């Protein structure tokens, strides 16, 4: 079927991209050229602005990539504050607590200062990679750190690997990150493998202690990389250790209601819920538990949302008695005075205590600064060598770890997890039993008996 000529003509006349009615075409091309020129000028002037910033010789630039806008911005801002505190200590802007290993004052680098250059990845892996590239090639950073989200850490560290720039990750827990056998990737935090194993060891210990069966578990994890990997590990370990999975739920993050999820959990009624949630979901799920009158004997949370500074502030007594895996707790100050000293500095600067995330971000910068100082140079190869030789004792850290020492894939082999419980508005260490400051409250008291 073809158009009669006259009709087609009509459209000819109407349309701008048509040859006979040509006014559009030339102008389109001229406009394109003009626009390109205009843009190129702005863009390049922008670029020069970015690259042309004067840089003191004695300045060591470290690229830091966090989610500073978007859904995880609150965590990102917290991490940023911790990283800045670490930099201030390294640069001696505030007196460093004795014993802290953080390359304070950079004695082997003639007292050079470190400068953190922040990038915002918005929770998007591609933006993470773009930022990594920009920080390396245009901001000329010596090393990179970040990025909290495991999938962003994956792409950003890939860029660092290509350029041969050290990438020290302090707070992403996906086990796969260090299975990639990268040459330039180092991670101080323990990963999910260890955390999930801890859960099961803890449950075994609790069974011995209470004499009760805790063999039926409900897996309740959010449906991104982190929740997925956690679910896989939990399923594997449940089978190996003869736990039964009463219910397995992967829920979509950014949800408006969790009643269907909680209904399913309630119907399956497991003794223990193992939950991985970011902050918004953690709050919403707790509210829904209460609303639907659901209470497992034990709620084992996988850090993140449950350990965010905001969580207890917003949940109040409804947040009590949650048990969560952690990498840091303020009460560990009883065993390591450094924790309290550094935490006081944090409180002074930003008005909040450390939490697991920010303490790890702080430690990431500290370990990196120490390595750069020991390297005595900003050459990537030297820093990498220094990182490989890292051997920080437990006493030089604010973490409840045995120290920092990287294996051949860049994973810190001395990291360990602890398990905390919310008691009286505080996160107190309850496991391993030998470092615990309080006994576990078990089972969880009913919602109305608190």
């Amino acid at each position, binding site marked *: 079927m073809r158009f009669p000529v006259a009709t087609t003509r009509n459209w000819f006349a109407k349309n701008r991209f048509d040859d006979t009615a040509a006014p559009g075409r030339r102008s389109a091309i001229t*406009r394109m050229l003009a626009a390109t020129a205009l843009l190129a000028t702005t863009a390049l002037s922008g*670029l020069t602005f970015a690259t042309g910033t004067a840089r003191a010789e004695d300045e060591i630039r470290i690229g830091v990539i966090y989610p500073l806008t978007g859904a995880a*911005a609150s965590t990102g801002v917290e991490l940023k504050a911790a990283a800045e505190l670490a930099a201030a200590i390294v640069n001696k802007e505030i007196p460093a607590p004795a014993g802290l290993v953080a390359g304070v004052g950079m004695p082997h680098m003639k007292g050079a200062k470190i400068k953190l250059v922040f990038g915002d990845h918005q929770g998007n892996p591609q933006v993470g990679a773009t930022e990594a590239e920009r920080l390396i090639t245009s901001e000329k950073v010596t090393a990179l750190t970040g990025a909290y989200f495991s999938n962003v850490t994956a792409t950003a560290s890939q860029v660092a690997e290509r350029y041969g720039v050290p990438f020290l990750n302090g707070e992403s827990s996906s086990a796969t990150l260090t299975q990639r056998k990268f040459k330039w990737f180092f991670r101080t935090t323990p990963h999910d493998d260890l955390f999930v194993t801890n859960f099961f060891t803890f449950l075994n210990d609790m069974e011995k202690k209470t004499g009760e069966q805790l063999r039926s578990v409900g897996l309740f994890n959010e449906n*991104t990389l982190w929740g997925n990997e956690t679910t896989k590990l939990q399923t594997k370990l449940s089978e190996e250790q003869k736990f039964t999975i009463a219910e397995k739920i992967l829920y979509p993050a950014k949800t408006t209601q969790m009643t269907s999820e909680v209904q399913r959990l309630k119907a399956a009624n497991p003794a223990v819920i193992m939950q991985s949630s970011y902050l918004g979901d953690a709050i919403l799920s707790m509210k829904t538990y209460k609303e639907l009158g659901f209470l497992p004997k034990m709620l084992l949370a996988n850090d993140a949302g449950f350990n965010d500074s905001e969580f207890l502030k917003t949940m109040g007594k409804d947040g009590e008695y949650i048990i969560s895996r952690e990498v840091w707790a303020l009460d560990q100050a009883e065993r390591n005075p450094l924790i309290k000293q550094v935490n006081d500095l944090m409180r002074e600067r930003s008005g909040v205590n450390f939490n697991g995330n920010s303490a790890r971000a702080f430690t990431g910068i500290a370990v990196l600064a120490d390595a750069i100082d020991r390297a005595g140079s900003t050459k990537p190869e030297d820093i990498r060598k220094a990182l490989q030789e890292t051997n920080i004792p437990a006493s030089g850290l604010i973490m409840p770890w045995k120290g920092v020492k990287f294996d051949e894939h860049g994973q810190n082999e001395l990291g360990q997890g602890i398990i905390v419980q919310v008691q009286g508005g505080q996160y107190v260490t309850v496991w391993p039993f030998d470092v615990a400051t309080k006994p576990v409250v078990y089972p969880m008291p009913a919602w109305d008996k608190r």
Partner: protein
Amino acid sequence: MSERTIPTPVKAFGALALLALAALLPLVVTEPSQQNFLILILMGAQLGVAWNIVGGYAGQVSLGHAVFYGIGAYTSTMLLLTLGLSPWVGALAGGGVSVLFALAMGWPCFRLKGHYFAMATIAVAEIVQILVTNSEFLEGAVGLSLPMDQSGWGVLIFLSKLPYYYVILGLLVLTVLTAWAIERSHIGYYFRAIKDEPEAARALGVSLTRYKLIALSVSAFLTALGGSFYAQKEMFIDPGSVLAGAISIKIALIAILGGVGTLLGPVLGAAVLITIEEYSRTLFGSTGSGTDMIIYAAMIILVAVFSPSGVLGLLGDLRRFLPGARSKGPDMADKMEIRP
């Protein structure tokens, strides 16, 4: 009218000059992050031009193009990972799968009009994202990583940015040529007929659904190629990075910003949008106070309010104020007007 008709050689020369400029640009812009920035613009431009075929020419507003992008990225990556198939072939396969999907989706959805059609495309894209997120076979939310130990033209993985630049430039040229060919052919007239006077076109015996399906298929094929390119460049894909609703919106934004239904408008739109995006983030994003979002959004609103026909239209408006431009006859901006 006739004295303003530009002879074909002049147009060809202009186009070639533009292409030569683009081809030579990396010689001036040598820093990898700046080259990366240019690549992002070309990627956005390619997607915008591809979207324009269905969203601009045929006037069928899709807000679910991420689905084709994701199909492209996932198909080529899966073929590479499981069968070791070169992404050159994989990308074509991805385009093929994408076309099949477009036909299956378009057949029922093209009964819907205006906002209903747009919402249906959003729904389809969201459903696919949810299914892929929960698919064991596609590694779900964990995503797929491309092997880092190989590189070269066979596997289309490179250590430097330059080859990526030329590959995406080539893809953009291919996409623009396709759009240009469509624009000039009778199919293009039918598309515009469908957009402007659907009832008249139907009365004249044009099968609306058939030509809408052609528009969507071509657009889907080209978008899928863009998705495969993304996978090759970033070497990691997951549902959030290639199937998210935000990608669909961004693709449409690029075309709208540049000027819907114009051949090169989306290229300009990509240049503007990506520049705003990258610079607002680079310069203000590190504060963590949302300033970059505010600036980005303010720019978008300003363009929408002051130049509904896109930046290309805005430049047309500016031309009117240049000396001598006034005598050139009908208002350019009128010609740039787009229809709902």
